[in-house]
């Protein structure tokens, strides 16, 4: 088990591409860290640098107080689980799991014992003599985990280990990985592009974009206090709704949802941030509600022309389009590109998650309310969260 520190780490590939820029992170012993971001943002590159599979262009990688930039992977005592699992097709499951021990010169009896234990833990005991080709996807995934576990390494590195599984198995394995990590208490760096995995698995989440760390924090913190538009849009599903707006004097903001008075707490931090007035307002779907169900909680109301209603049982999703400008920023454009969601309907597409009792119908106009104390206010030019800035 180990403490891993990335100190101003930079990766520039020989072809000149800057894949990771000035990466700083201190991973505590036993911590479960998630590296999340859209594909191509440098997650694998970062992981490979920690593994020793890629050279570090500049900066320091410190494991247990020792700079290991120049150490070969085999001397770092770190195990890795690959997206493709990378099981050796010519070896049995048992041989695959025992391979690291065999390379380390461990005697046969100990190997057998350790492989047996790991297999027990992963429910692979009856498959030890089979070849990887004869296993299901989930079993292969567990063999890959087993190979990492047997040698009791200082840390686990996992590069999208679940993305080749179908949705249901993915959820199962997610809980299993979480359980194993908690039991073993091994420092883990886990890469994913799936924000759900990020939110459910990690002690802390690192959000990356284009090689640069956007924010580091616990899942709850990232959700409640995203540092910028990118993090706000990336974390959470369905994602946050964004409306361009203007700040007016006296703590009001004007958007496609009309004029709203921001709570004092928000106003104070805005005054400190010294904004120009052009902002983007972010509201999460669950912060909308049917106005008739709210009572007199503070907030603002508006009329929404409901397009589609999806009743999920526990709650209701309402989709509608508000006339007005669409929020534009580099962050949001990047996000749209990542999700392939670049269609614009000449207005702001909004998703609202309402109570199951909400009276909304397709094609009708509904009066909706939103919680002004939960809105995020971003600077339109820089994308920075003006509310979080003071904190």
């Amino acid at each position, binding site marked *: 088990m180990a403490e891993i520190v990335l100190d101003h780490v930079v990766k520039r590939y020989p072809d000149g591409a800057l894949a990771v820029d000035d990466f700083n992170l201190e991973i505590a012993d036993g911590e479960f860290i998630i590296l999340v971001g859209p594909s191509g943002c440098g997650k694998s590159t970062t992981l490979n640098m920690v593994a*020793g599979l890629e*050279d570090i262009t500049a900066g320091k990688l410190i494991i247990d107080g020792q700079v290991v930039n*120049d150490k*070969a992977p085999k001397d770092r005592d770190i195990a890795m689980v690959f997206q493709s699992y990378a099981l050796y097709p010519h070896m049995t499951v048992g041989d695959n799991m025992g391979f690291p021990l065999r390379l380390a010169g461990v005697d046969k009896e100990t190997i057998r014992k350790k492989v047996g234990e790991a297999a027990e833990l992963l429910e692979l005991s009856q498959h030890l003599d089979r070849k990887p080709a004869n296993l299901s996807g989930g079993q292969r995934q567990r063999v890959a985990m087993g190979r990492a576990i047997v040698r009791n390494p200082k840390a686990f590195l996992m590069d999208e280990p679940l993305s080749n599984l179908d949705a249901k198995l993915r959820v199962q394995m997610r809980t299993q990985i979480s359980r194993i990590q908690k039991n073993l208490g091994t420092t883990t760096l886990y890469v994913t592009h799936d924000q759900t995995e990020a939110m459910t698995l990690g002690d802390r989440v690192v959000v990356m974009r284009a090689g640069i760390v956007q924010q580091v924090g616990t899942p709850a913190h990232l959700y409640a206090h995203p540092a910028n538009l990118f993090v706000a849009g990336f974390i959470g599903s369905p994602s946050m709704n964004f409306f361009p707006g203007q700040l007016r004097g006296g703590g009001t903001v004007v958007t496609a949802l009309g004029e709203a008075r921001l709570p004092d707490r928000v106003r104070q931090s805005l005054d400190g941030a010294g904004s120009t007035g052009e902002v983007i307002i972010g509201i999460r779907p669950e912060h909308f509600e049917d106005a008739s169900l709210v009572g007199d909680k503070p907030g603002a109301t508006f009329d929404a022309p409901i397009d589609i209603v999806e009743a999920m049982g526990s709650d209701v999703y309402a989709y509608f389009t508000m006339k007005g400008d669409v929020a534009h920023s580099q962050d949001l454009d990047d996000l749209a590109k990542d999700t392939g969601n670049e269609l614009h309907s000449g207005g702001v597409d909004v998703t609202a998650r309402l109570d199951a009792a909400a009276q909304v119908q397709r094609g009708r106009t509904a009066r909706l309310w939103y919680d002004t104390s939960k809105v995020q206010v971003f600077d339109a030019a820089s994308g920075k969260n003006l509310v979080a800035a003071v904190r």
Partner: protein
Amino acid sequence: MTATPTSAAAQAIEDVADDGTVQIAQQRHSDAKKAERKLGLMLVAPAVVIMLAVAAYPILYAFWLSLNKADLRRPDDNEFIFLDNYITVLSSPIWWTAFGVTMLITIVGATFELILGMGLAIVMHRTLVGRGLVRTSALVPYAIVTVVAAFSWRFAWTQGLGWLAPETSAPLTEFWPSIWIIILAEVWKTVPFMALLLMAGLALVPEDLLKAASMDGASAWKRFWLVTVPLIKPAILVALLFRTLDAFRVFDNIFILTSGSNQTSSVSMVAYSNLIRGLNLGIGSAMSVLIFLTTGLIAFAFIKLFGAAAPGADAGGKR
């Protein structure tokens, strides 16, 4: 006043140090990289040494010999004569006849090979029945030793012995019949190889594309010319390049079929005659160099004209 220059100097020293570390960072390779480089060089070393020893050194030596009057029958006459050997060769009708014969065999042979090879490739690719049988038997000519095939053709065309020989004449003693038989022997042996390369290209043409073209109303003939051929152009060019270079070096078949009589010698045959039979190393080497230059020119022309990707050109495939 004194503080300023000092701090400027300190600044300068820091700059140097900064530069220094930057350079170190660029030059430094981690242990893993160093081990990888070392292993890479060690693994290629034996292959490189052998290839250099057998090809690079001798070719330089051949260049040198070609500039000398190196005749093993008169070893004492050995002297540096610069380009005299080349002048002798290039003004000799024997060389030019052989050059013409070689060109003829190369061009006519490659043309037939391309046409028949394409036909065979299509048969192997499309046949509804006995695909394995066809593919397997098509390999037979490739597997047969060239000299054996050459003997088979030679006996077949030998008067009074062969099943193909006419009653009243000996085709292998006349120029044109000999040339055609040589081309036949070359073509027979190499069509399968050509067909295999082309078939590999055909396998890469998406079936859906041909279906779409046929829905668009393209006849089989049009589909072949407008869809298949453009898509397998790279395979065609690679196959053609290989074969042209090979055909230009034709030797075995001619040696067995005619021994180069009746002016049927190829350039390789005349070079061989000068070297081994005539023991005139200077002249023979000059011919060798000329052959080398011509094949180089052919390859260059192919790659320039068609932009054919050299095989293994992207051998630096990265992770």
